[in-house]
């Protein structure tokens, strides 16, 4: 089963995403900030990460930069979801390899479609297996 890490400091957001993705056949883990997310990524293995940007302790941007540094040959995909009015984040995201920018408010249907696009139609088939 393909596993997704959802990172957001808003617990209701992570909850509803987790619920929807699990119903869509994915295995979902959540983290409430970049620090926690980095820990989970380094420990486990994920097929995709969905992360917010504005978070306490470690922002989504810092988290992604840390990932680039620690796992330069990262295989999994990153979805950057933000409500930021700053275009700079979108620019930055474009330069980040294997990533996609998603604007908040997030549409779960759209997220699901993008996940299928990048990870394949059947969520139960693990591409790494």
């Amino acid at each position, binding site marked *: 089963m393909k596993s997704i890490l959802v990172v957001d*400091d*808003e*617990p*209701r*957001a992570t909850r*509803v*995403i987790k*619920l*929807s993705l699990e*119903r869509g056949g994915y295995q979902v883990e959540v983290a*409430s*900030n970049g620090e926690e997310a980095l820990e989970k990524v380094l420990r486990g293995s994920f097929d995709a990460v969905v992360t917010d940007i*504005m978070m*306490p*302790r470690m922002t989504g941007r810092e988290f992604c930069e840390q990932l680039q540094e620690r796992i330069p040959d990262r295989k999994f995909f990153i979805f950057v979801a933000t*409500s*930021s*009015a*700053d275009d700079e984040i979108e620019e930055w995201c474009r330069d980040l390899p294997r990533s996609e920018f998603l604007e*908040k*408010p*997030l*549409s*779960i*249907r759209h997220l699901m479609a993008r996940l299928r696009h990048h990870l394949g139609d059947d969520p139960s088939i693990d591409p790494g297996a």
Partner: protein
Amino acid sequence: MVGVKNERLGLLLIASSLLVILVTTGLLLKFQTDSRREQARFQGVSLARLLSRVPYEQLVPGTGHQGPLHVIKHAQGNPDFAYATVVDVRGRTLAEVTSPGVIVPQTPIGSEPSSWLGERVLEQTGTGGSVREFFAPVLTDAEIVAHVRIGFTEPGYAMVFEHVPFFALLALPIFLLAPLSYFLVRREIAPIAAAGAAIRALLEGGAAPTVQVDATGELGEFIQSFNRFVEMTQQRLQEYRSERTGMLASSRVISYQKTRIESVLDALPDAVLVLDESGAVGLASAKLEAMIGVPAQTAMGRRPQDWCESQELLAFLSRFQREDSQLHRAESMEFSPDETQLKRLLAIAYPLLSARKVSGASGTLVIIRNISGEFAARQGQAEFVDHVAHEIKSPLNVLSMYSETLLGKDGESEDFRIEACNVIRDEVERLSTLISTLLSIARLEAAVVGLNRQRVRLGDFLSDTLEAVSRTAKDGSTSCKLDLSGEYSPIYVDKALLRVAVNNLLTNAIKYTDAGEVTLSAEETEKSVLIQVRDTGIGIPEGDQPRIFEKFFRSDDPGSVRRGGHGLGLTLARQVVELHGGEITLKSAPGEGSEFSIALPKTLALLQEPGQS
């Protein structure tokens, strides 16, 4: 000076010519005298010897006969000849011939044979002159019988003069000509000397006199031309002087204006730079140093690459150095002059259009403005907008996803529907609170809100506020306590605003306290009225305490993060308290709890009804 010198030269000329004449005459006279004396000696010695050999009888003929003496008198042609006489050994004259007017001196000759032949000079009685006499013995049978004496007048200078009229004639015109020529020359050069004096007067800055001369010919023409020249020069000089005075005056005016313009430029808050067509700095105001650390004097006259350290500014200024890239309209650029990026400057370049040049600018005016304040405000504004967007979009995000999910299969689950409805209600409330808070902050910041002071009884106000808060507190595990001691003076505050402040403190206290106690208390001292909110909650990490009142500040502490919030409640509380002239302080220890104190100083405004004096 020159005149005196000329005169001295003239006198010297005369003196030296006289001297030359005298010396020449003297030398000639001496030569003549010497040669005549030599002639006399030769003739005298010869005659004396010749006559001494003539037999006595022939030498002294009898009376009535002319002897050889007469022959000598007539035969010899020497004008100096004085006399020839024969005397016996006793000195008596035996025969004699004399030149007219000559008296033979009666001086005996010595009796010694050694003194019979010789030469001597004798005084001539009566005339005062002298005679050179040559004498020899006349012997008959080796016996002396008589002496022959031949006398010649010693040639005197006066006498010689009479014989040299040629020299006198030569000397006289020379003697007369020298001073004459001197005076003639002097008279001729007088106009030139006058011209010299005129030039001197001109050089010394005075008025040059016109040289008056009645000379004709070349000199006359020269003097006329000279006079015209002097007149013209004087006129030019006059023109030049008045021009110079005018220029001096206008240069003073210009310098005064320049100083004034410079001080105006220096007084401007912006730095002003003027670049000429080649890009070099023609003018720089003193503010340049404050802006980019380069003194105006350093930049003056130099191209930017020689003084500009900021690469961004250099690139901007360098564009105006090339003829083809002259400005046609104003251009601007923002930059930071140093690495720190704390200072933000705005450079605006305007083309300087000149009347001389039809196309293109004849230089560039560059104004450098310090916009650090605006920049920081802009940054802050951008940050604020970013925060607001995030705070609004976060609940919208949740709302959007929940509603989307409700429409899907999950919506069929009763549990999910209930959860979704609760979430939606909460998020809407959160949004609405946020919007009210933002509006309050905006109004407070814009000082739109004047304080609507009204009489408030502190005890009632606090108990009402606490009651309202505890009613909305969902969790019943935290108890809220009111601790009022005694009576309080009525205070005049904006009740609605102060309620927001106290409400925010209480809400926070309840939010960050799990199963503990929140106490609201009040205390009146001599100087102030204190309102305190104490809790036994999670406390605030020491590092976060200084920033806790900042707009949108959220602690990174996990306990705090979990509880959510916008980070605006304390900001609002502080603004309200400060608007009342009060102060809000914090005491907190992590794990033990926090205590926020509102201190309202007992000013007239606080204690007296508005309008009351």
